[in-house]
C-alpha cells in the first residue's frame, strides 16, 4: 500500500478546497437558512407536524442529504475530471499507485468535504429549529456511507464525462429530481398510493428515510432496507470503478 500517495492526493485535494473555504462554508449556510425561511416558515405554518415531528425539524435530515448528495457528486466528479481536463492526470497514471489508492485519495477527500458540509448544515439548522439526534452512531454511519458512495459515484461520472456539460448532466437530470421526489420535504404517507409505489423505486427515498430515522426514530421504509440499499449502491460503484481501472476506460489510450 502506497500510503504516502493516498495521503498526497488527499491533502492536495483538501488544500484546493481550503483555498475557497469561505465559499465552501458560506454557500451551504446561506442556502440552508433560505430553506428554513421559505419552507420552514411558509409551509411549516400550514403543516405543523409530520409523524409527530415539527415540520421545520422534519426537513432537516432531508436537507442535509440533499446537500451531501449533490456536493459529493460534484466534488467527486470534479476532483478527477479536472486533472483529466488539464492533462495533469499523466502523473497519477505514471506513479506507482494502485487503482484503490487513487480512489481512496480522491474519493476520500471528496467525501470528507461533503461530510464537513453536512455537519455545517446540521449546525446551521440547529439555529432555526430544535434538532434531536436519537441515534448519533447511525446518523454518522449514514452520513459517511452516503458521502462515500456518492463521491465514488461522482468519481465515475468524472471519468466518464468528456466535457464540462456532461459533468452536470447526471446531477441535474437525475439526482436533483430524485432527491426532491425522495421524501426530503414530506413523508411518503402523504402521497397517493400510486406515487407511494413509484417512490419505492427511487433509491434516494431509502437514504432520506434511514437518515431521518437516525434523527427522530420515524421512517418511511425499514431501517435495514435503507442500509442495504445504500451499501448495495456503494458496492455497485466499487465494481464499476474496478472495471474502469482494469480496462483503462477513458483513462489510458
Amino acid at each position, binding site marked *: 500500500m*502506497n500510503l504516502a500517495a493516498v495521503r*498526497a492526493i488527499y491533502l492536495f485535494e483538501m488544500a*484546493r478546497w481550503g*483555498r475557497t473555504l469561505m465559499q465552501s462554508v458560506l454557500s451551504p449556510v446561506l442556502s440552508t437558512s433560505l430553506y428554513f425561511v421559505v419552507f420552514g416558515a411558509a409551509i411549516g405554518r400550514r403543516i405543523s407536524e409530520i409523524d409527530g415531528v415539527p415540520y421545520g425539524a422534519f426537513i432537516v435530515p432531508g436537507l442535509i442529504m440533499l446537500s451531501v448528495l449533490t456536493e459529493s457528486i460534484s466534488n467527486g466528479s470534479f476532483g478527477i475530471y479536472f486533472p483529466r481536463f488539464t*492533462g495533469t492526470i499523466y502523473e497519477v497514471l505514471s506513479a*506507482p*499507485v494502485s487503482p484503490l489508492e487513487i480512489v481512496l485519495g480522491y474519493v476520500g477527500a471528496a467525501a470528507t468535504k461533503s461530510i464537513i458540509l453536512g455537519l455545517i448544515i446540521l449546525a446551521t439548522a440547529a439555529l432555526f429549529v430544535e434538532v434531536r439526534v436519537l441515534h448519533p452512531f447511525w446518523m454518522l454511519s449514514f452520513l459517511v456511507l452516503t458521502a462515500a458512495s456518492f463521491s465514488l459515484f461522482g468519481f465515475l461520472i468524472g471519468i466518464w464525462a468528456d466535457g464540462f456539460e456532461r459533468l452536470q448532466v447526471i446531477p441535474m437530470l437525475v439526482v436533483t429530481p430524485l432527491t426532491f421526489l425522495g421524501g426530503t420535504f414530506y413523508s411518503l404517507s402523504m402521497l397517493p398510493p400510486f406515487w407511494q409505489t413509484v417512490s419505492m423505486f427511487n433509491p434516494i427515498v431509502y437514504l432520506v428515510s434511514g437518515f431521518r430515522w437516525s434523527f427522530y426514530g420515524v421512517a418511511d421504509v425499514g431501517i435495514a432496507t435503507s442500509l442495504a440499499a445504500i451499501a448495495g449502491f456503494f458496492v455497485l460503484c466499487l465494481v464499476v470503478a474496478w472495471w474502469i481501472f482494469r480496462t483503462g476506460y477513458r483513462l489510458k*489510450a
Partner: protein
Amino acid sequence: MTRIISISGLSKTYASGFQALKDINLDIHRGEIFALLGPNGAGKTTLISIICGIVTPSQGTITVDGHDIVRDYRHTRGLIGLVPQELSTDMFETPWATVSFSRGLFGKARDPAVVERVLKDLSLWDKRDQRIMTLSGGMKRRVLIAKALAHEPKILFLDEPTAGVDVELRKEMWALVRGLREQGVTIILTTHYIEEAEEMADRVGVVSKGELIVVEDKARLMKKLGKKELTLHLASPLAAIPEALATRGLTLNGDGSRLVFTYDRQAERTGITALLSDLSAAGIRFTDLDTSESTLEDIFVGLVRSAP
C-alpha cells in the same frame, strides 16, 4: 554494460485503428543518455507513454530494471521520472506544493530538504510560492522537470525538453542532464533537434512511422559525419567512369556531367591530389568543383525518407 530497460516486440494500435508503433525492440543501457529522434507523429511520445504506464501496449513486453512494467508496476514506476511534452501543470498551485505532491505520489516520505534542493537546482527557489500560472513557459517546463525529479528517479524521460526554450535555458538543461547522468541517472530524451542529440546523447535511435529504423552509437554516427564529398562539374559528360579511374571509388551523377568523390576529412591523405592528376592524365576537364559534408541531418532525413 547492463540493460536498465528492455523492450521487445512492442506494438501499439490505438482505439482509432491507427498503428503508432510496430514491433519495437530496444535496450537502454544503465547510465546512458539515449536520444530518440523522429519527425512529428513518429511515435516517440507513444513509446515513452507506454514505458511509463500512461498508454497500454497492444503487444510485446517491457522490463525496467528486470521487472515487468505491467506485473511489477510499483517497482518500475517508482524508478522512473517523466517530463511530458505538453506543459500540463496545476496552474493554481505553487511550485513548492506541486513538487511536494509529486514526491508523495511516488511513495517517498516527506523531505523538504529534497524539494528545496530540486527547486534550487532548477532555479525555481525564488518562485516557490508563486502560482504556476504566473510563471513563464520556460519556468513551467522547469516545474515539470522538478516534479519528475522530486522522487529521485533512476531513469528520467524527457519528452522534448527544449521545445520552445531559449538558447540559454537549453544550455542550462543540457548541463542539468549531464549532472544527472554523473549521478548515475539514465536519461532518455526525445527531440527534433539533431544538434541536441549530437550534443547530449551517447546513443541515438531514429523512429519513423512507428518503426525504430536505426539505433547507433553517436560516435559511430559522427564518423559517418566525418565524410566529405567533392563534386566535379565536367566540361563534357561521360558515359562511364574511365578504366584508369575505376579504383578511386568515384560515382557518376547528373547524366554523367558530375563526378563525385567521397573522402575522409580526417584522414592523413585524402587522395584529392592524386585524383586530380589522374583526371588531367585521362584528359577529363572540369568547369567547377564544390565540396559538401553530410550532416546528421542529412543522414536523418535520408533514413526517414527511405523508411517504408
